[in-house]
């Protein structure tokens, strides 16, 4: 199965901090299949705050968000939107 992915840049001044990670995880948790965050050669489970935090994403980091099921396209769009909008910060 083809995976769908989008690459985004963390723009909010605080990076991917605990509360931002919590918001990502909440959205990713609704996906039907797995959701991954990939930075360089690290890949973490987007439904886990702890896993997201271990990426230690500072502002400016480039991330790839990946979903594996076509029905998760909407989830992917929402995740991208959260990051692009800087988590509303």
């Amino acid at each position, binding site marked *: 199965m083809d995976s769908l992915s989008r690459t985004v840049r963390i723009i909010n001044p605080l990076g991917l901090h605990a509360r931002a990670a919590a918001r990502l*995880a909440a959205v990713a948790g609704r996906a039907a299949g797995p959701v991954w965050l990939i930075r360089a050669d690290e890949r973490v489970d987007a439904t*886990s705050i*702890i896993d997201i935090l271990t990426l230690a994403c500072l502002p400016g980091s480039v991330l790839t968000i990946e979903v594996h099921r076509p029905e998760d396209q909407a989830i992917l769009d929402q995740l991208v939107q959260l990051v692009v909008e800087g988590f509303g910060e």
Partner: protein
Amino acid sequence: MMSAETFSEQRLYGIAASPGICIGKAYLVDREGVQVVQKYELRPDEVSHEISRFKAAVKKADDELNVVIANTPEELKQNSAILEAHKVLLKDKLLYGKVLGTIENERINAEWALKKVVAEINAIFNQMTDSYFRERADDINHVADRILQNLIGAQRKNIGAIDKRVILVARDLSPADTSQIQLERIKGFITDKGGRASHTSIIARTLELPAVLGLHDATRRIGNDDIVIVDGTAGMVILHPAEQTLLTYEERRERYEGYKAQIRRRSHLPAETRDGVHVRTLGNIELTEEVVSVLDHGGDGIGLYRTEFQYMNRKEFPDEFELYDKYRDVVEVMGPRPVTIRTLDINGDKAVAFAPDNYEANPALGLRAIRYCLKKPEIFKTQLRAILRAAAHGNVRVLFPMISGQEEIVAARRLLDEAALELSRAKVPHNRDIPVGMMVEVPSAVIMADVLVRHVDFFSIGTNDLIQYTMAIDRGNQDVAHLFHPLHPALIRMVHRVTQIALEAQIGLDMCGEMAADPLNVPLLLGLGLTELSMAPASIPGIKRMVRLVSAADGQALLQDVLRLEKVRDVVRLVDEAYGQLVAQKVYGDMGASK
């Protein structure tokens, strides 16, 4: 049975976080059960029960957090935002899911599985170089502790239910803990962790309760209901005091309370030396609530409003309106009295947790205070606009920290002008016509004082940093701490240069470091020409009293003598010979002798 007879007296030394003396019974609020976690293996038929037990403990932790969040008073709501994240963490795959998997696969008890998983998570976070992300491990540990407590069934000591007046002993007090305390039940604080800038320290000082923090192992040495003496002035805790010690300290405590009451009665009167020099005593504050304390202690205004607190313990930078709102509160309460707002001074011991770009090996010499602000003009201007808006409501002065040269003060002033212009364009009421000052706390600023004096309306001498930078010592390093002394001849000469230049140019001048809070230094400061001193609110009455006992002329004579001396010891001896008795007898009772 008196514990004083069955145990030998022990003295524990920590950080003097809030002055005063209290004597009472210890009340431990620590996670005691956590250390006694045992490992045992499960029979196959026990696994599903163990899993339900773990789920129930998590559910209970979630309920508890809901209660804490619901009961958090409005003024502490900011702190509870992190509790929401804790709730999500409870169910995190890497914690919740992994523990369930470990119970199932390894057939071990839930406590041990939890401990194991948390240890693995800690190992990952400990390797991180960025301090913000590294410290997120604390959040995970707090959450895990809460689950563990429920598993063990250990009665979590409910701080909210303390029914007698006690001395609180804790490893560390989290904002969740402090928001539950019924503070009228607390006599004093003792903690293993934390320093003068910690949440507990600030709360203790605001409430004027004695506190000794950073004792490392107090929770291990002190038992529930042990009799303890907390001497928050000396930074000492006496455990199992002997009869004689109890008597001595009871007397001291009474004298200290009496002294406080006595000088407070007179603290509203102006402070004038015997030869008629009027001294203005101002308060250093950090929280809006401390304003009341400044007025209660007879302060003539705010000499140093530290603004870092609104930037700490939170995930986002505060916006202009929020800052304006806080500043305006302070300004309005103070009425016509001056309020000196120091712009953001982020540094080593006050790292803004959410700004992950500020990790540095040597923060005291790094991107802090004005340097940080000049690099982040938008963050800086947000604060400046808030200050200018608050200035429309009272007597505001703006103070720039860590200025080291002409370019910085010029750049800071330019941004202040820009901020004013932005407000004018947006037709927002504000007042640009306020005194602009700089902290003199970097040695280069002392040397360039004759140039810098042309660019500001006032100098504020910050002795703590000035000593640290002049003597090249890290205040936190015990091996060199003995070199940290405000009466060092080098420091006196530096202050002398600054005061001479300021007085000659007739700009404003004040001192706001710890040097200004010690009554013994008052004559020398008067001799240096300082007539405006800013300090912790609780120190104001003692300083005012000392001012009334001495004369400025004697202070000038003392300064001349001191300037001839070569060693810090000689200066200390001279000042002590001249004024030590006066301070010890009139101000402290025999408190001076205990130092």
